């Protein structure tokens, strides 16, 4: 049996990948979803996890630094992008760049984001706005949520007129309208690194490979994730 620690935002598609794996006769997989920080700390405290899928590179770096992950097993499993969403269904798409007049668009409202210092989605969003020189003028107008799903809820409920969330979040929320996508180069690449936990066995390695395989890729892509490794297949490493 395998225990996978995965960032909570991977919920739906990862469950489907696990189902596909088990259907093919793979070992039973249990997934524990929580915030990446909590999972990383638990692994550091000796959690019996076999695989860790983080929503941020930082926490994976942290574990790698402490030699808690299988050497060479780390890979960027998934990618994502950032979108600007609006509560107003009639809102017209905009060009996302240095000319974006977010302040005017917000009016008296707030811009919903995840915590800009602490939660990856917020950190990426802040980097993007900084790269356009927009951060200084909107900083005071940002409402920061505990996680990106809460930011999405702020917009979906109409509490905030605009928000910055992952593309995958916007897909399944009918109450929000995507106004535009942030260019990939406006923020550090959004990556979900995955790795084996230090003393994982061969079965875990097999599942990690399955996660990186074509069948899994199809499922993740259907959910809106990008699959960066498909363009760099030779970076795959087997333990």
């Amino acid at each position, binding site marked *: 049996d395998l225990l996978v620690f995965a960032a909570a935002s991977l919920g739906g598609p990862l469950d489907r990948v696990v189902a596909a794996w088990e259907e093919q006769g793979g070992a039973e997989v249990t997934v524990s979803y929580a915030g990446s920080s909590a999972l*990383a700390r638990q692994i550091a405290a000796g959690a019996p996890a076999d695989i860790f899928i983080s929503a941020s590179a930082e926490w994976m770096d942290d574990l790698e630094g402490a030699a808690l992950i299988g050497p060479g097993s780390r890979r960027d499993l998934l990618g994502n992008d950032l979108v600007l969403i609006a509560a107003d269904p009639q809102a017209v798409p905009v060009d996302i760049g240095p000319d974006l007049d977010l302040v005017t668009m917000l009016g008296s409202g707030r811009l919903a984001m995840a915590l800009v210092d*602490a939660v990856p989605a917020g950190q990426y969003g802040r980097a993007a706005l900084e790269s356009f020189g927009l951060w200084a003028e909107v900083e005071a107008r940002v*409402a920061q949520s*505990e996680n990106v799903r809460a930011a999405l*809820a702020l917009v979906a*409920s109409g509490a*905030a007129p605009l928000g910055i969330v992952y593309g995958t979040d916007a897909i399944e929320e009918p109450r929000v309208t995507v106004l535009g996508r942030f260019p990939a180069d406006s923020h550090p690449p959004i990556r979900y690194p995955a790795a084996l936990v230090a003393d994982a066995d061969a079965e875990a390695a097999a599942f990690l490979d399955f996660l990186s395989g074509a069948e899994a890729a199809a499922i993740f892509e259907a959910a809106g994730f990008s699959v960066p490794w498909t363009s760099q297949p030779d970076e795959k490493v087997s333990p």
Partner: protein
Amino acid sequence: MTDWLGPEEWQAVRLSLKVSASAVAASLPLGLICALALAKGRFPGRQLLNGLVHLPLILPPVVTGYLLLIAFSRQGPLGSLLEPFGISFAFSWTGAALAAAIMAFPLMVRPMRLAFEAVDPGLEAAAATLGASRLRVFATVTLPLALPGVVAGAILAFAKAMGEFGATITFVSNIPGETRTIPTAIYAFLQMPGGEGAALRLVAVSVALAMGALLASEWLSRRIARRVAA
């Protein structure tokens, strides 16, 4: 002390105190009414009221935050009701206080209710024979005798409000100076690798404040209890 907490953290501390105190002060009258109704009332729907009061305790805080968000958004049932009056809790410290008040409400009501139930009905009857109306009996006999429990409930609620996080951040988000209370700041630090140190400093402040409140409440209850029983 000013050295090891930055200005933003001090702001969070001040805000937390303001939010928690306001939450307790504003919900106290309703809390008393609910406690009294649950303790002495015999009306249909009493069980329902009891359940309602306890709901925030049972629900994960994030869910409570979501429900508040939905209810008080501009299109929400309560938000649309209040909007014509210019009342809005969205993204303001009053919203944080509302969230804290709701989360702390069950903790406020329970001890008060128990205290009201423990007041000897014989003394209330004696007051009535001396010509005291129901209201006067309450104000001069029931409430003073239940005061240790009432204070306990209020301080308990204050402590809970100081620690409330999930519902607050979900409902009113985290806006420095407006809704960024101590727990949100702590949460943010804990999300960052290496943020533990800063988080623990804030934890220390938070613990000190709430302990101070608890000590004060103990001292107060004992004074009251001495007045009442000795």
